[in-house]
């Protein structure tokens, strides 16, 4: 029953040399690709039946000094969840916005901008989203010291570690 995923894997491998495709389990497909050819891969997948972009998430690899953007696509006919990963630089994180492909990506990009500080060129509404008048650094980054911030903002007495 794996052959649908196999076909998909071969199809991607054929068109995109530098994308390593793995099939961790049934119905799941993970592609890691360079940021230059990410948009073309997304377009290719969208044409190929992966019409639903369910989420854009971001992982902070503090050790390697990189941020990883993960685009989650879902295909209704093939019942496959494709996770397209790419790495961008951590110091000045910026990336191309995929609103032309998926209009609703604007909100996801807005959240990632607020939580991780990744600027998406082409997204006109990169304004605060969940946090209320936030002044500090993006909170979801690994180097954000949570305890210190909470102690200083809400001046809570020392809690036993």
């Amino acid at each position, binding site marked *: 029953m794996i052959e649908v995923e196999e076909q998909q894997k071969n199809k991607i491998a054929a068109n995109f040399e530098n994308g390593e495709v793995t099939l961790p389990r049934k119905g799941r497909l993970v592609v890691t690709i360079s940021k230059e050819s990410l948009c073309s891969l997304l377009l290719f997948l969208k044409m190929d039946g992966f019409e639903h972009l369910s989420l854009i998430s971001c992982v902070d690899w503090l050790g390697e000094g990189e941020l990883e953007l993960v685009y989650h696509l879902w295909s209704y006919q093939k019942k496959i969840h494709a996770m397209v990963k790419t790495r961008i630089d951590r110091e000045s994180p910026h990336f191309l916005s995929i609103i032309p492909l998926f209009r609703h990506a604007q909100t996801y990009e807005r959240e990632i901008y607020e939580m991780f500080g990744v600027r998406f060129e082409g997204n006109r509404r990169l304004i605060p989203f969940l946090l209320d008048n936030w002044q*500090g650094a993006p909170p979801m980054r690994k180097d*954000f010291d*949570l305890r210190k911030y*909470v102690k200083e903002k*809400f001046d*809570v007495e020392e*809690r036993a570690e």
Partner: protein
Amino acid sequence: MDRAQIRKILKSPGKWGQKYSLWVVYFCTGCGIIEIPPVITSRWDAERFGVIPVATPRQANLFLITGYVSLKTLGAIIRTYDQMPDPKYVVGFGSCPINGGMYWDSYNTIKHLDKYIPVDGWISGCMPRPEAIFIAVTHLWTLIDKELANGYKRYKEEYPYYEENQRQVLPHLPKFTGAGET
């Protein structure tokens, strides 16, 4: 309704009225609001205690802060608390308003509710059951009887303390309108 009770009622009708007709602001502040519908419907029926949900703070005298309080919601809670007429009581519902609960180290929720608005009663438990709410209501009755549920007086007298805490967390918050501003 023996003779002593009737004499008590006639002596202070205000307290009697406040006790047996606590109208709750139906304002969903956090995850605890999912406990309110069963409380007010057939199975647990809060109306036997005279507790009914009302739509606007102007009509209410009990404010139930249910669940964690994020910074954005705190602004709305303070605003709603301002708009409630005077004999008003606040009950913290769930462990998050008490000491932050499981969000004790979150950057976006407040840890101690009573630093920002005066709280008259607490119900502990990570989403306490409806029976706990009725216990809280009966406790509130005794507090009202003994004139201990005077959070709103405390708020007026020590308003600078509360305002300073609020401003530290919400710098852009406008001034409290209830402090005698005509």
